[in-house]
């Protein structure tokens, strides 16, 4: 059989998933990874740990140092792709080099949204989307006292925690009425907010950073929408991300919010696939196509794409929104829907005496979402129940009493799981 040259633009979860899937089918097809970032593949969700120095570059590595060599991958790191040509089947790199492909995977991830602050200066303002961002922010933080984090999502709150660890006075400014609104429900996000506040982080909601003040180019303070002034040596922009899909858009690929892909992660162009944060693929619960910028989803999509590129079988079952967060020692998890939509019901229970909370969302008898704070030990059982789509009405009685375990499942279902 003719060998296929697989070219992957990107070097994160989706790219690595694709490499591993291709290699499971073909040991000899040449694979090239192109990435603007110079680092070995690293775990992006852990960069707040890099910021505060709890992990170093080695500690955030996603795969062993010999990964590319062991997998037979030519890694063009620190080389930016500037254009793709689906007609000629090649990728143009910065500097003009042209890399031809038989199969192309776009796994270019997401980029931070930068709010317009009408700021002419530089310095003191940073995003937290890459290892380089994290290291630079960490260096700047060691000479700073006041930090403002714009955005109270997962990235913003982890940034706040990391900066707090470095001894800074941290204020989080969130546009929505509560922090972590896209990852957790109100019950969970209130407990997490309280945990952060008790640790010393100030949280301001229903507000946003609209301008910055500098004195001889040095950041002095930020101004909020309601005209509040907050002192700031550092401003971290964490208001959200969007697919980094410029290459695909310029090449005319079908796009919505991200690059539209089918159940095998193929784009509208022949021999071009997309996976990870840049792709808009199937959502397990809604059956619609949705951008789900989550690490495990990216890895799973990358595997589906890699399998398809190497000629293997299998389709994507759809991604499920899921989050695991530990904030100032308090753990929280969520999966699927965060609250009941029309025709659905939810059952929630909060411990009165300590930060422990659990909730499930049911659509008829089917489990479609779950949230837990404090006791998260066997949370994956709920994730499994969503994916398996067995009747889950029994959860209505369990949730008010305790965290669900396998013994609460109907007998037959449990036997299936445990006896084999």
């Amino acid at each position, binding site marked *: 059989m003719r060998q296929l040259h697989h070219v992957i633009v990107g070097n994160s979860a989706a790219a690595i998933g694709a490499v591993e899937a291709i290699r499971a089918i073909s040991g000899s097809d040449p694979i090239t990874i192109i990435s603007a970032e110079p680092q070995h593949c690293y*775990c992006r*969700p*852990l960069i707040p*740990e890099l910021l505060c120095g709890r*992990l170093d570059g080695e*500690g*955030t*590595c*996603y*795969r*062993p140092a010999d990964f590319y060599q062991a997998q037979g991958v030519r890694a063009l790191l620190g080389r930016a792709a500037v254009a793709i040509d689906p007609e000629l089947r090649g990728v143009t790199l910065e500097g003009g080099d042209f890399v031809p492909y038989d199969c192309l995977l776009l796994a270019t991830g997401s980029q931070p949204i930068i709010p317009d602050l009408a700021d002419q200066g530089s310095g003191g303002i940073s995003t937290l989307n890459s290892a380089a961002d994290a290291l630079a922010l960490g260096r700047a933080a060691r000479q700073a006292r006041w930090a403002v984090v714009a955005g109270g999502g997962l990235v913003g709150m982890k940034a706040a925690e990391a900066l707090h660890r470095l001894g800074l006075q941290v204020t989080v400014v969130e546009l929505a009425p509560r922090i972590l609104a896209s990852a957790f429900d109100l019950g969970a996000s209130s407990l997490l907010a309280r945990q952060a506040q008790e640790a010393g982080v100030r949280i301001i909601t229903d507000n946003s950073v609209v301008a910055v003040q500098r004195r001889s180019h040095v950041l002095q303070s930020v101004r909020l929408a309601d005209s509040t002034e907050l002192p700031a040596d550092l401003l971290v922009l964490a208001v959200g991300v969007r697919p980094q899909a410029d290459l695909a858009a310029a090449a005319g690929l079908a796009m919505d919010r991200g690059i539209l892909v089918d159940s095998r992660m193929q784009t509208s162009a022949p021999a071009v696939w997309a996976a990870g944060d840049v792709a808009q693929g199937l959502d397990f619960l809604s059956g619609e196509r949705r951008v789900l910028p989550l*690490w*495990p989803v990216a*890895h*799973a999509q990358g*595997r589906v794409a890699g399998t398809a590129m190497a000629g293997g079988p299998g389709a994507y079952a759809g991604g499920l929104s*899921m*989050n*695991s967060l*530990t904030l100032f020692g308090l*753990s929280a*998890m969520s*999966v699927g829907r965060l609250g009941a939509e029309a025709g659905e019901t939810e059952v929630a229970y909060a411990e009165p005496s300590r930060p422990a909370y659990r909730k499930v969302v049911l659509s008829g008898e089917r489990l479609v979402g779950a949230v837990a704070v404090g006791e*998260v*030990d*066997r*949370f*994956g*059982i709920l*994730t*499994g*129940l969503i*994916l*398996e789509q067995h009747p889950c009405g029994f959860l209505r009685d369990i949730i008010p009493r305790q965290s669900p*375990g*396998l*013994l*609460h499942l109907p007998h037959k279902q*449990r036997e299936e*799981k*445990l*006896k*084999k």
Partner: protein
Amino acid sequence: MPAIAADEEYCMGCRLCEIACMAQRSGISDLAKALRPGRPRPQPGTRVETEGVRAVSISCRHCQQAPCLLACLTGAMQRTQDGRVVVDRDRCAGCGTCVLVCPYGAVAISPERKVASKCDLCPGWEQPACVAACPNRALRVVEESP
């Protein structure tokens, strides 16, 4: 790949499996010494769930398509040459993603080390400590993991 299967009909909820696992992990063969009060106890890789009179001991099934392994943020969750799913504790960041996806609830974050902790099938032993310790044969080794 072998895995441990649990028969709840035979489980008495005595928790000897948990104790045997903790002792095994402590590296001390004398059970009384291993579990002496005051000595830190390792997180057991199996956990007995109880509900009324029913009980069952649940540990990692070493799934063939292991969700924990696929979802792991750091690559700490790995498959060994002989097919077991194990945690490289030096590479684990304790993010909990494995806990979030394990349909058996068989991975925990160890309270003292803040890293993922689970059954490793007791490599190098004739049979896993929990299976050997079970007085009622509620745990057994099966040849094919799910």
